[in-house]
């Protein structure tokens, strides 16, 4: 717990990292100053892009003592404002799942190679990033904790599958290799509550270590303080659950 007599500092910058497929992409790295070693977090940004909210969240995790990296999952789409790039990605039907998993695995490797880390790495994502974080935790070995915030399209109908998203993430549940925290709004439609239930049933079926929290009065994106979907009480409780969960598994 922070007290006013403590030293606190964060060093944050844009870095270049290597994806699992060898591509160079950029990423935002926020590292706590002071005495380590620090646990690490890989952040899978949301559909609105590699934007200011994710840089702020990287900083937030660092303030809480987690060295955090947020890879630019839309890097290959081009460079411009986060909105212009995300709009192009949206029009193109997203980015390929395999590519994203490779980028997140590359971020995992990047932080493991840094000095003053404790060797424990979690992964966090919201919206499409929640889905991508779940995919990475199932398909890229080495994560120690997963936080999926309202990740949509974990459950997909066959007609929703595309060459970029060829397998519904729920199909990988058996391969989930770390404890999972899921936060969901009961008024959400992606994922809808019945899809969250379906995902939970699959986690139970395979005996996975998970905890799901469902919030009444909240829909999609209830952490986003700059959007009308923000729900103060649910967001405060959700963040408390995130840090309690990470403290348990990444210490």
């Amino acid at each position, binding site marked *: 717990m922070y007290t006013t007599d403590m030293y606190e500092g964060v060093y944050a910058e844009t870095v270049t990292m290597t994806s699992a497929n060898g591509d160079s992409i950029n990423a935002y790295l926020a590292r706590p100053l002071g005495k380590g070693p620090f646990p690490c977090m890989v952040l899978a940004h949301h*559909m*609105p892009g590699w934007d200011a909210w994710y840089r702020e969240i990287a900083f937030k995790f660092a303030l809480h003592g987690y060295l955090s990296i947020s890879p630019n999952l839309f890097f290959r*789409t*081009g*460079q*411009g*404002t986060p*909105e*212009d*790039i*995300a*709009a*192009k*990605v*949206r*029009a*193109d*039907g*997203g980015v390929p799942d395999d590519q994203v998993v490779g980028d997140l695995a590359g971020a995992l490797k990047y932080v493991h190679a840094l000095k003053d880390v404790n060797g424990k790495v979690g992964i966090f994502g919201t*919206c*499409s990033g929640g889905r991508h974080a779940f995919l990475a935790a199932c398909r890229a070995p080495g994560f120690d904790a997963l936080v999926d915030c309202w990740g*949509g*399209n974990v459950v997909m109908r066959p007609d*929703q599958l*595309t060459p970029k998203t060829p397998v519904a993430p729920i199909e990988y549940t058996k391969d989930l290799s770390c404890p999972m925290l899921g936060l969901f709004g009961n008024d959400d439609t*992606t994922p809808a509550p019945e899809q969250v239930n379906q995902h939970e049933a699959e986690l139970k079926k395979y005996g996975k270590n998970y905890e799901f929290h469902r919030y009444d009065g909240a*829909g*999609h*994106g209830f952490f986003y303080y700059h*959007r*009308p*979907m923000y729900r103060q009480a649910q967001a405060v409780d959700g963040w408390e659950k995130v840090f309690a969960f990470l403290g348990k598994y990444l210490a």
Partner: protein
Amino acid sequence: MCTMIAEKVKVEGSGKGTSGWFTLNQANVSYDHPFNAPYEYALNIDFVNESLGPSARVAVELSESAARDLMRTILSALEQAEAGGHLPQK
């Protein structure tokens, strides 16, 4: 990407972006998260010319009812133009 509802259509015309007017050749239509409009989901239209880079974009984010009103209004204006003999002869 959350809804996976996104379509593209070729268009002809001009749009005024942050750097002035440019030639449009495509409209990207989605029903998904907007960047600015105060809705969880919106009918988003990006008028673009991809050959000019990602910033060549004129964006609108509309509520569902506004999008339907706009669609009806566009069709009404075109019908009036046709009735008045203002459309180019095919």
